[in-house]
C-alpha cells in the first residue's frame, strides 16, 4: 500500500499546545514498512494522547497485533481542540502517529471504549479521518469500524456507528478476527459477507444483524438476530491463563509527561469483592492471577527495555493478590538496585502495607486514599462494601502515625436507598478521621489535609443495581450543598462531581439504540471532550435530547423491574441475571455477600472454569 502521509508543517505544530502529542517516534514505537504489510489496523483512543498512552489495554493490543507480520497496528488519539481547528483549517485528515497516514486508508479501525463520555470523540475522530460516522453510510471502500473495552458490555448506544464489537478481553479474539480478515481479503466477498462470517465467533457482536422491537411504553419488547444462523447471546471472551498470555515488555516510552508515566505490572484480572455498584467487579469475573514468578520476569524485562524510573502494580485491589508479600519482597530488591520507584496503588492500609510503602518508594509521603463509598454502616452493607468504621479509623491512625498528612476519602452520593442520615454519616466519618489525627498526633499541623470527594452514583449494566434509579440533578445538588455547609474546616477540602455530566453518563451507560440518535445530534451541534469540564456543553445535550424525542429520565429515573427485557440482555458476561437479581434483593435487606476466596456465591462465572471457581 502506498504511503499517503499527512503533511504536518512546522508552522501548524509550533502553533499548538504540546506538539509532541502528534509527533510519534517515541522509544519502542513499532516501525514497519506499510508497503510490505497487507493489513493496517488503526487503534483509536477517543481522548488526548496523555490519557490514551496511559491505558494498559492499548499497550497490550498494540504490541500483540504488531507481532503479526501481516498487520501493522498504529495509534490514533483525539487531537486537542487547538489542533483540530488547525487540521480542519488546513484540510488535514486525522493521522496515525506511526506513519502519519490518514485514518480512511486503514483496513480496520478499532476504538477502545473506556467511558461513556468519550463517545462524541469517537464520531469526531471518524469524521476528522474522513470516514462516514454511520455504519449505514459506509461502503465497500471504507474501513471496518470495531470497538471494545468496558463500555462495550452495553454496546447499544453505539450500534449505529460500529460494524462489530469485541465483547470481553481482546487478546485471543483479535488474532482470530485478523486471521478471518486475511482470508476474507483474498476473497470476493462483500463487507457484509465478512461481518456475517464473524458473527459466530465467540465474543463478536455485529449489531446490524440484530433487531430490537419496542413496547408502547418504550421498553424493549424483543431483541433477536435477523437470522437464526446468528447467536441469540454473545458471550464475552476472556484470557484463561495470564501466565501464558501475551504481555508487552517493550512498551512505548512517551517523551512528554502522561497521566500514568510508568511501567505497569498487571497482577490479576477481576475482583473477589463484589461491591454492588462496581461494574468492574462483575464484568471481569472470574479472578485470574498472574504468578509472582512471571511478574518478576516481566518487571525485569520491562525496566530493561524502557528505562522507566517507576513501576506500578495494576489490579482492582493490590492487597487481594495472593502472592503480594512474595512479589513485593522480590520487587523491592530489584527496583532498589536499578533506582526504580515501586508504586503501590489500591493497597489496604495495615502495618504490612505501610512498611512496604516506606521501603518501596523513597519519594515524599504524598497521600493515601480510602474509599468507604458510603457514610453509614447500613448503606455500606447495602452496597456490599465490607469495610467498617473501625477498620477505617484504625487504618488512618496508622497512616497518621507513619507520617502521612494527606488523606483522601472517596464517597458516592445517590446510592440506592440513600437517606439524609447516610449523607450525615459522611460528615460524621470525616470528622472522626480528623479526631483520629488529634488522638494520635495532638494539635493538627498546617500540612494536615483531608480531601473528601463525592461522585454521583451511576447505575451500570451487569451490576445488581442495573435496575435502579439515579438521583436527579436537583437532589444531588442539595446533598452536595448540605455537605459543603458541614465539611467546613481548614483541614478539610471538599470536591464534588458535576451531576449533569453524571446524568448523561447514566443515560449512555444503560442506553438502547435510540440514544445513538441523541449522540449523533449532540456531536453535530459541536459536543466533544464532554468529560473535560471546559468543553462540556450541557445545554447542547438537552437540545439534542429534545430534538431526538428522547427523554433522558426514561433511562435515568425509571426503576426497572427484574423481569424487564434489558437492552444489554443479549450480552453474556458469565455472571447470571439470576445472581444479580439475588444480589439486588440482598442489597435491599442490607445483607452481605462473601468474597470469592472465602466462599463461592454461585454467580455463574464458573462457566469459564477458572481456578478460583473450582
Amino acid at each position, binding site marked *: 500500500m502506498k504511503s499517503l502521509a499527512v503533511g504536518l508543517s512546522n508552522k501548524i*505544530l509550533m502553533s499548538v499546545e504540546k506538539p509532541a502529542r502528534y509527533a510519534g517516534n517515541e522509544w519502542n514505537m513499532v516501525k514497519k514498512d506499510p508497503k510490505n504489510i497487507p493489513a493496517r489496523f488503526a487503534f483509536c483512543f477517543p481522548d488526548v494522547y496523555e490519557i490514551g498512552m496511559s491505558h494498559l489495554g492499548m499497550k497490550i493490543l498494540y504490541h500483540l497485533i504488531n507481532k503479526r507480520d501481516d498487520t501493522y497496528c498504529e495509534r490514533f488519539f483525539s487531537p486537542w481542540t487547538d489542533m483540530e481547528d488547525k487540521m480542519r483549517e488546513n484540510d488535514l485528515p486525522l493521522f496515525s502517529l506511526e506513519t502519519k497516514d490518514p485514518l480512511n486508508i486503514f483496513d480496520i479501525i478499532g476504538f477502545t471504549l473506556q467511558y461513556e463520555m468519550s463517545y462524541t470523540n469517537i464520531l469526531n475522530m471518524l469524521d476528522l479521518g474522513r470516514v462516514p460516522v454511520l455504519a449505514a453510510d459506509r461502503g465497500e471502500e471504507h474501513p471496518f469500524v470495531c470497538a471494545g473495552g468496558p463500555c462495550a458490555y452495553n454496546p447499544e448506544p453505539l450500534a449505529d456507528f460500529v460494524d462489530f464489537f469485541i465483547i470481553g478481553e481482546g487478546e485471543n479474539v483479535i488474532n482470530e478476527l485478523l486471521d478471518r480478515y486475511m482470508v476474507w481479503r483474498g476473497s470476493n466477498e462483500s463487507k457484509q459477507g465478512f461481518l456475517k462470517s464473524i458473527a459466530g465467533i465467540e465474543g463478536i457482536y455485529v449489531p446490524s444483524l440484530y433487531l430490537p422491537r419496542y413496547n408502547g411504553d418504550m421498553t424493549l419488547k424483543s431483541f433477536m438476530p435477523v437470522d437464526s444462523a446468528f447467536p441469540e447471546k454473545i458471550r464475552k471472551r476472556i484470557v484463561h491463563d495470564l501466565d501464558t498470555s501475551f504481555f508487552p515488555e517493550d512498551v512505548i516510552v512517551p*517523551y512528554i509527561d502522561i497521566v500514568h508515566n510508568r511501567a505497569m505490572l498487571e497482577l490479576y484480572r477481576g475482583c473477589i469483592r463484589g461491591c454492588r455498584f462496581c461494574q468492574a467487579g462483575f464484568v471481569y469475573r472470574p479472578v485470574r492471577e498472574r504468578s509472582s514468578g512471571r511478574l518478576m520476569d516481566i518487571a525485569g524485562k520491562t525496566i530493561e*527495555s524502557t*528505562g*522507566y*524510573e517507576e513501576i506500578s502494580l495494576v489490579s482492582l485491589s493490590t492487597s487481594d493478590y495472593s502472592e503480594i508479600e512474595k512479589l513485593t519482597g522480590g520487587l523491592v530488591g530489584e527496583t532498589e538496585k536499578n*533506582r*526504580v520507584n515501586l508504586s503501590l496503588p489500591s493497597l489496604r492500609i495495615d502495618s504490612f502495607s505501610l512498611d512496604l510503602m516506606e521501603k518501596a518508594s*523513597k519519594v515524599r509521603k504524598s497521600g493515601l486514599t480510602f474509599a468507604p463509598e458510603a457514610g453509614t454502616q447500613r448503606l455500606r452493607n447495602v452496597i456490599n462494601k465490607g469495610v467498617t468504621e473501625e477498620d477505617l479509623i484504625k487504618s488512618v491512625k496508622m497512616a497518621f502515625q507513619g507520617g502521612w498528612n494527606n488523606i483522601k476519602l472517596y464517597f458516592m452520593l445517590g446510592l440506592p436507598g440513600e437517606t439524609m442520615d447516610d449523607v450525615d454519616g459522611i460528615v460524621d466519618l470525616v470528622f472522626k478521621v480528623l479526631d483520629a489525627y488529634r488522638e494520635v498526633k495532638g494539635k493538627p499541623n498546617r500540612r494536615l489535609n483531608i480531601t473528601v470527594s463525592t461522585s454521583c452514583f451511576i447505575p451500570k449494566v451487569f451490576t445488581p443495581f442495573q435496575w435502579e434509579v439515579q438521583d436527579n440533578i436537583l437532589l444531588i445538588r442539595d446533598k452536595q450543598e448540605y455537605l459543603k455547609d458541614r465539611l467546613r474546616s481548614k483541614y478539610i477540602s471538599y470536591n464534588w462531581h458535576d451531576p449533569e455530566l453524571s446524568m448523561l453518563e447514566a443515560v449512555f451507560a444503560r442506553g438502547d439504540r435510540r440514544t445513538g440518535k441523541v449522540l449523533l445530534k449532540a456531536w453535530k451541534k459541536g459536543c466533544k471532550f464532554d468529560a473535560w469540564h471546559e468543553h462540556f456543553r450541557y445545554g447542547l445535550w438537552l437540545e439534542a435530547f429534545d430534538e431526538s424525542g428522547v427523554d433522558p429520565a426514561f433511562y435515568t429515573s425509571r426503576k426497572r423491574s427484574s423481569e424487564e427485557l434489558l437492552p444489554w440482555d443479549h450480552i453474556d458476561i458469565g455472571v447470571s441475571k439470576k445472581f444479580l437479581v439475588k444480589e439486588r434483593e440482598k442489597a435491599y435487606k442490607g445483607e452481605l455477600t462473601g468474597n470469592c476466596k472465602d466462599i463461592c456465591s454461585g454467580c455463574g462465572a464458573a462457566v469459564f472454569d477458572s481456578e478460583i471457581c473450582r
Partner: protein
Amino acid sequence: MYNLRAVFARGKEVKFISHLDMMRVFERALRRSHIPVSYSCGFNPRPKLVFGLPLAVGVTSEGEYVDIVLDEEMKNDVFMEKMNGSLPAGLKILKVSPVEGKGNIMSSIQGALYDLIVSIQFGKTEEYIKQSIKKLISQDEITVEKRTRKKVGIIDIKPMILDIGVKILSESGFKELEFGYNSNMSYFPDKLAKEKYSDLFESCEGTVLIFSLLVRAGSRGNLKPELFAEALKSVLGQDINICEIHRRKLFAD
C-alpha cells in the same frame, strides 16, 4: 566519581519535546544502557546530569552539552557507543570528553550560534530585503515586545546580538547577502547544505532567508531567535513565518 561532558545533536524527530522531557529521556537512556550514573542524595535522588542550556520546543541542534557524573570510570568511546544504542532516533552523542576542573557547564555558557530560517511573502526584491535588514541592524536600539507569563515588556535586543549573517535562497542555491556587522560570519564553518534543508523548503512558502545569528546565551543574558524574528517584522512586514530554528553551537567561557 568520574565527570564527563558529552556533545549531542537533537534532530527533528525529537524537536517538539521540552527541556524537562529531555532530562527524562537521558535518565531513561542511561538506565537502559546500564551506565553507572551517580545520583544525588536525599529524599528524592536524581541522576547527576547538567545540561548546558535548555533547548526550546521546536528547535533542533548539533551542539548541545551535557555533563554527567558516573560512579566509576568509563572509556569515552564506550560511553558514547552505549548511549547511542539507547537514545531514541534523533538524539545522538557526537563527542565525549572528560571534564577538567570543577566548572559547571550551565554557568559557563556565554553565547549561541543559531540558524534561523524564515520565509517572507514573494514579491520583495533581494535589494529591498537587504536594505531592510541593514536598516534594522544599524538602529541604535532594536526593541521588541517580550511576553512572560506575568507581563509584557519592551526590551532592547541589540546588545545581545553579537553577529549576523544572511543568506537568501534563490533558484541557483544559497546566496550570501553581503553586509558586515561586527565581524564576518564566514568565520564560522558553514555546513549548511541544500540537501539538509530540502524537505524544509518544500513546506516553506515564499522567499526563504537563512540568518546565522550569534547571540548572547546563558544565565547572564539570553536571546531567543524568535525575538529576532519579531524584530524583523518591523522592517519586513508581519508575514514572517519561522520555518526552522537550529542551534549550531554553544560557546562557553
